């Protein structure tokens, strides 16, 4: 049990650290999701199945769904088309944003 717990704890720490160093918001939300899932296994090893059920339904389920809905709203999940457009626009940026935009409109 101890070894198993140690592995889980190690995983938790790795997840927590990598959340803050991942560049992509979607990735960090996914990492957080797995963090929650592992947490719910930790609850089982600590003999608290009530917490395990709740954590699995809430932490890994509802909270992550809310995160995804938010990411969609703040355009952090880019569709491919949008990304292409963004790239084009970034290209423009490097020249001169203000002028380019005002000329185009």
């Amino acid at each position, binding site marked *: 049990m101890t070894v198993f717990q140690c592995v889980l704890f190690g995983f938790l720490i790795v997840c927590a650290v990598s959340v803050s160093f991942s560049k992509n918001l979607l990735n960090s939300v996914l990492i957080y999701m797995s963090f929650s899932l592992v947490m719910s296994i930790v609850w089982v090893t600590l003999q*608290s199945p009530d917490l395990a059920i709740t954590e699995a*339904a809430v932490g890994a389920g509802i909270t992550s769904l809310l995160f995804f809905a938010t990411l969609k709203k703040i355009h952090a999940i880019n569709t491919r088309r949008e990304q292409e457009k963004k790239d084009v626009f970034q290209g423009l940026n490097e020249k001169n944003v203000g002028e380019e935009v005002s000329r185009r409109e």
Partner: protein
Amino acid sequence: MSKLKSREEYEKTGSFRFWRWLDGRRDPYVGQVEMKPQTPVETPELTIRERLRDSQAVRDKVYDIENNKSLNFFHRVYVLAAIVYCVGLAVILLAMVAYLPPTGEADRPVNNEVSARYIESGLQETGAVNIVTGMILDYRAFDTFGESNVLFAATTTVLILLHRKKKNQDGRVEELENDRLLEPKRDAILQGSATVLVPIIILFGIYVILNGHLSPGGGFSGGAVIGAGLILYLSAFGFERAEKLFTEKLYKTVSFAALTTYCLAKSYSFFTGANHLESHIPLGTPGAILSSGLIFVLNICVGMVVACTMYTFYVMFRKGDF
């Protein structure tokens, strides 16, 4: 030759179709199961441009280093102070852990007469087989009542932030904020699996709620499971179908009814308890579904509130009204 079927007749039989499928000449699922290419939802080019330009303008203003020396300086000091604080906190906390009583042993201050009574006579006093449920809904019910009010307050604030007016003069803003236009249309795999899964998930949620006093789980976890089931239904079948099922009125009625029941039931129990009156609520046989008195009712109330709340959160995030 009368036994032989004509070609047209033969083509109608099942064996023909089977062999044809086996040969791979025609896949019966083509066009039936795969996700149909969505009608590409165009975010108008102009809005993307505007958005990008806005964020660029922000960055231009903010990272205007010459004019922002004070901000820069402040920022550096802040980061430095925060890092020092965090490292200090870590050291202090780890040192503190070293002085705490060891985990996993029985003779620690936490394992005193309080937990002993919960375990030894919880079943007789609350009627709940699950000691944790008995504890949070009977011994320490005031906390749990506070907790459901936290949820209620959070829903209120989310409604303040994201609930839009029904009529919006500015049509464009409406479209951007409302992503019902972006949702997948007729995804057969999703819909098929949702048809199977949603009833099972919701049934499981109801099971968890109703057995809250007998097995792990309870109002909150069961409610969250039901909420997740509703969200799956919404994602699979779209807003239009979901709106028929779940309206603002339903939300208001359910949460009002559940919270009121909760409030009244708990008030009664607190009042009788504090005034040393008999509460006259039968506890039933421990282990039966209809047992443990108020805990059963309270679990149902909490479950309903939580399911509604979770679904409301999601709907508010997606489109801003019910």
